[in-house]
């Protein structure tokens, strides 16, 4: 018997026609073969997802969510329709966002393409993959902590029993993951995320 691959279905939800068009164009660019469905309002999205349960991917622009309670809205969509793969497009990622994927409005073309590619080709969230480009590894957190506390590369190397080169590599990765270059900026990040305590930071 011939095995027939089921066609993928993707919903593109945004109030703005230009956003939907842009997403469609980029999907075409990265060669996603999927049936595309567009919705322009939140109600329409809800109706659509209720009617058709076979959606695989949801690309959702935050403009479609009800103002004031965007994170709740999003959670509702995700939980009610069992969508594992949703990517959000918006200004700023919500804290504890239910979506694993996010595209910021300020992303460049390349970043958007990269993120969409990750979204479609990365292993599914339920397959337990913790490779979020923004989260630091435990080792990186150790290094960040030491940097924020004001230790030099040499001191950090001694403390963590690694070479100075390794420290430098970790620092490079931290900076590229967080987009923060200065030591005082990194200290603020570490404090915000409780990697160090205020008393420790002088």
């Amino acid at each position, binding site marked *: 018997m011939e095995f027939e691959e089921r066609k993928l279905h993707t919903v593109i939800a945004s109030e703005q026609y230009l956003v939907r068009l842009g997403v469609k164009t980029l999907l075409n660019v990265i060669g996603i073969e999927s049936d595309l469905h567009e919705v322009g309002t939140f109600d329409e999205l809800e109706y659509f997802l209720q009617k058709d349960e076979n959606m695989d991917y949801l690309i959702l622009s935050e403009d479609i969510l009800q103002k004031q309670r965007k994170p709740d809205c999003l959670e509702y969509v995700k939980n009610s329709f069992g969508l594992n793969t949703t990517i959000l497009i918006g200004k700023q990622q919500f804290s504890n966002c239910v979506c694993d994927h996010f595209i910021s409005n300020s992303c460049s073309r390349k970043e958007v393409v990269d993120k969409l590619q990750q979204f479609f080709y990365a292993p599914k969230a339920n397959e337990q993959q913790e490779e979020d480009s923004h989260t630091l590894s435990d080792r990186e957190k150790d290094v960040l902590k030491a940097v924020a506390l004001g230790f030099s590369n040499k001191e950090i190397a001694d403390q963590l029993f690694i070479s100075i080169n390794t420290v430098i590599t970790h620092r490079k990765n931290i900076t590229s993951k967080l*987009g923060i270059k200065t030591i005082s*900026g990194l200290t603020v990040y570490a404090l915000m995320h409780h990697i160090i305590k205020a008393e420790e930071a002088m």
Partner: protein
Amino acid sequence: MVSFTKNSKMAEIILKNYQLLPIISRFGIKLGFGNKTVEEVCANKNVNAAFFLEILNSYHNSNYFPDNHLGDFNVDVMVDYLTNTHTYYLKSKVPHIQLFIDKMEREAQEENSRNINLLKHFFNEYKIDIENHFKEEEKHIFPYVIDLEKTLNTNNCSRELIDKIKHEPIEVYERNHDSLEIKLADLKNLIIRFLPPLSCEDDCEHLLTELFQLEYDIEEHTRMEEKVLIPKVKMLEQKVLEYYGV
């Protein structure tokens, strides 16, 4: 990109690029220019038109390189302008940003208020950095530049000045001229990526807009120092050395 000339209409320049507004106000030029040209407006306000144009053009077009107009104005107008710009940052921009941060801190919920407090300290540190940077320029660099010009005008050159040109020329400053934008970029990143969402979105948006503008302005300011002031000073150093046959 087309450059503005002394015959360009002032109003058209601003309509083309509104980001030039803070620049013209630094020269004391006010709106309501009717159909006056750059030359006319400058004559009214006693502003050196050649220099004014250099500033407008390099601010307007980041690839603009002011090669053949460097001789058209004295460094003292330039130093005046740069000093005014420092004052504008410290007296107008920085307090403005601090106001927004304070407001956000007040309006945020407890947990986030702590985060904003961290950003506030970070920005205060930044403020001290730029204050020191500006102070150094105003205390050491600008007087040196003015001295060079004075020497050429009065034919009266001190031994110290010659020594300074030889051992501590403007090139030294050029090499150590550190970037003031890195910390601003970090601050933007912290807000955009890591600050949990706020209920006062508008304030946050204003704050970011202010930060983007300040960053752009400071970049331009640095470029001005590096592309207009420094080449001009190098030229003066050369002239002094030649004149005194050292």
